[in-house]
């Protein structure tokens, strides 16, 4: 059971998902390879664009929650080429900033006092946008604080967005209503959870307490008495966002240190806590020059059901993956293969999954892994391209992959993406996994 950490859940999940994810990671790459693509394979690029244009156009009309769902689905279905995915991952709930009178009113309503009564100072304008709100900076007793305020009516507007996305997505991705619902429930639940700031504070406190002993990971302190349904007050974390951080030219040593901290953080959450910070988006971390990293947003947390966990991570056992009978059974259990598949389809998808697991499992199958290895990411990207342009894959309109894997895959892909950005070398061998099993 050694290198079992193999492919993150992500890898295994849905074939189509893979594609999509591959593409997403690839997004990073797009930067590196776009030129190459255009120089050497201009035809391909154009073809690609034609294929994706319709989908992109339909999706670009969606906003907020609908867009998020569409993103997820397109990842899963592997339709969206990397270049577009890059754009989508940046798309957020878009709203103009809240006026100060409304911020002030929100405080009055929820905490009974205005921001100037609660804090020694408070910035009138937002210093940052959060995905469904905005962040102000405050000072209390000499301490710098970050105060996050949610836009009014977000939960409602998410619900109506989600209603809207269903018919559109059904059409776009050519999957059945039942399949659609299967994933939608998961996504909807998570999206609505994100609008519950009280829950977020609770989880932040729990996870940061459980992870207190991990090295080089820091958490802000939360102030429940200054938080509410739509307000979160926490310590202001000094540091940089990923892109800014990279501009400061951190040494390899520092990058490795941060990469390792992140890796251990996720390893611990998945295998010990079975509860994961499932939004591995670069905006949710603050990188610091001393080689530490702060985790600042617990809006999206996935609790991993035990039976799913055991099933899913069995793939980390290489001997298991080598046993064709067991492997087959496993693919069916996690809905990568369906009973309705034709023998050809079975052959096709089995091959694809095998390939993905081998490729994406690489970091888990060795003791140490260099995430700065662009060749590795290029391979993922190529595989993604291959799947997304495969006619056979497109013809199959069944949804594949267990829904519990949705966010876990997303987490691992996000993690890979950040580690690649950091060009970090990481000891990937997991002790915790061995302990857990």
């Amino acid at each position, binding site marked *: 059971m050694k290198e079992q950490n193999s492919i993150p859940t992500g890898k295994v999940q849905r074939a189509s998902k893979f594609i999509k994810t591959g593409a997403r990671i690839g997004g990073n790459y797009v930067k590196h390879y776009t030129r190459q693509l255009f120089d050497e394979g201009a035809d391909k690029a154009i073809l690609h664009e034609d294929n994706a244009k319709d989908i992109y156009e339909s999706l670009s009309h969606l906003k907020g929650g609908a867009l998020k769902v569409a993103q997820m689905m397109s990842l899963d279905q592997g339709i969206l080429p990397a270049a577009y995915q890059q754009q989508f991952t940046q798309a957020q709930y878009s709203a*103009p900033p*809240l*006026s*100060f*009178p*409304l911020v*002030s*009113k*929100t405080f*009055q*309503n929820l905490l009974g006092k*205005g921001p*100037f009564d609660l804090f020694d100072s408070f910035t*009138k304008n937002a210093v940052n946008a959060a995905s469904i709100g905005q962040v102000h900076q405050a000072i209390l007793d000499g301490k710098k604080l970050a105060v996050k305020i949610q*836009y*009014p*009516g977000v939960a*409602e507007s998410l619900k109506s967005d989600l209603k809207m996305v269903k018919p559109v997505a059904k059409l776009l991705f050519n999957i059945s209503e039942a399949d659609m619902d299967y994933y939608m429930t998961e996504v909807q639940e998570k999206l609505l959870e994100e609008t519950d700031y009280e829950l977020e504070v609770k989880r932040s406190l729990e996870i940061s307490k459980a992870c207190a002993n991990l090295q080089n990971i820091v958490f802000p302190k939360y102030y429940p008495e200054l938080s509410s349904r739509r307000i979160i007050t926490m310590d202001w974390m000094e540091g940089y966002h990923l892109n800014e951080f990279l501009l400061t030219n951190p040494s390899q040593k520092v990058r490795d240190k941060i990469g390792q901290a992140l890796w251990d953080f996720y390893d611990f959450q998945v295998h010990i806590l079975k509860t994961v910070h499932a939004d591995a988006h670069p905006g949710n971390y603050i990188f610091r020059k001393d080689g530490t990293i702060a985790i600042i947003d617990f809006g999206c947390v996935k609790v991993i059901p035990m039976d799913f966990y055991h099933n899913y991570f069995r793939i980390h056992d290489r001997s298991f993956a080598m046993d064709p009978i067991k492997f087959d059974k496993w693919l069916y259990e996690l809905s990568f293969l369906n009973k309705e598949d034709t023998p050809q389809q079975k052959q096709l998808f089995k091959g694809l999954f095998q390939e993905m697991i081998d490729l994406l499992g690489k970091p888990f199958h060795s003791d140490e892994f260099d995430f700065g290895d662009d060749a590795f990411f290029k391979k993922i990207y190529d595989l993604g391209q291959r799947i997304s342009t495969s006619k056979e894959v497109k013809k199959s309109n069944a949804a594949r992959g267990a829904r519990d894997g949705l966010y876990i895959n997303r987490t691992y892909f996000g993690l890979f993406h950040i580690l690649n950005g950091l060009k970090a070398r990481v000891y990937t061998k997991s002790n915790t996994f061995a302990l857990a099993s």
Partner: protein
Amino acid sequence: MDKTQGRIINSYIKYLSEHQKQPKSIAAFMEELKLKEETFYKYFKNFEKVEIEFWKKRFDETIKTIEKEEVYAGYSVNEKLLSFYYTWIENLKEYRSYAKYVLKEEKIYELYPSCLEAFKKGFDEYVSMLVNEGVETEEIASRKFITDKYVYLLWYQPVSILKFWVKDESEQFEDTDALIEKTVNFSFDLMRSNGLDSFFDLAKFHIQHFKI
């Protein structure tokens, strides 16, 4: 205003909130208050005047509250108007059933319920002050013949906010907050110097040179 006048207003508004209709007569109403009918006439000519006074009071109270806030003076004109609406709606919360009664669909009123008369007067004055201030700070574009009309155009805002709010069922009326925010932002986007100005400038040019 003395205590008795305040009592009459409060009781009458309470009556309308509870019954969603007027008392049978002034006499019956005053009887309930254990007051003489003539006392009523000392303060008001009829029931409607009570309501008018009620809305005026809410307006005065709102202005008083916002001006008391330290930040208010430093607000932009846009923010001042927002803060007016938020505070106004906040002050109306305990009278929502009454506001519902005022805006009942079956009730026939012209552009706005007549009991808002005095409120409108106060609002118009307040808003024209804001517009002047906005023109000075250049938050609002000074447009010949149009700037003076802003006040009339802005009057639709409190009425539509009120109509929305009495039907709003979101938690703590957050949807109304969103509506206020969007309404005010939109109106200021229009009043600010923008593409319209160059459009009119161009149109004027064309008209001047399009001599047949």
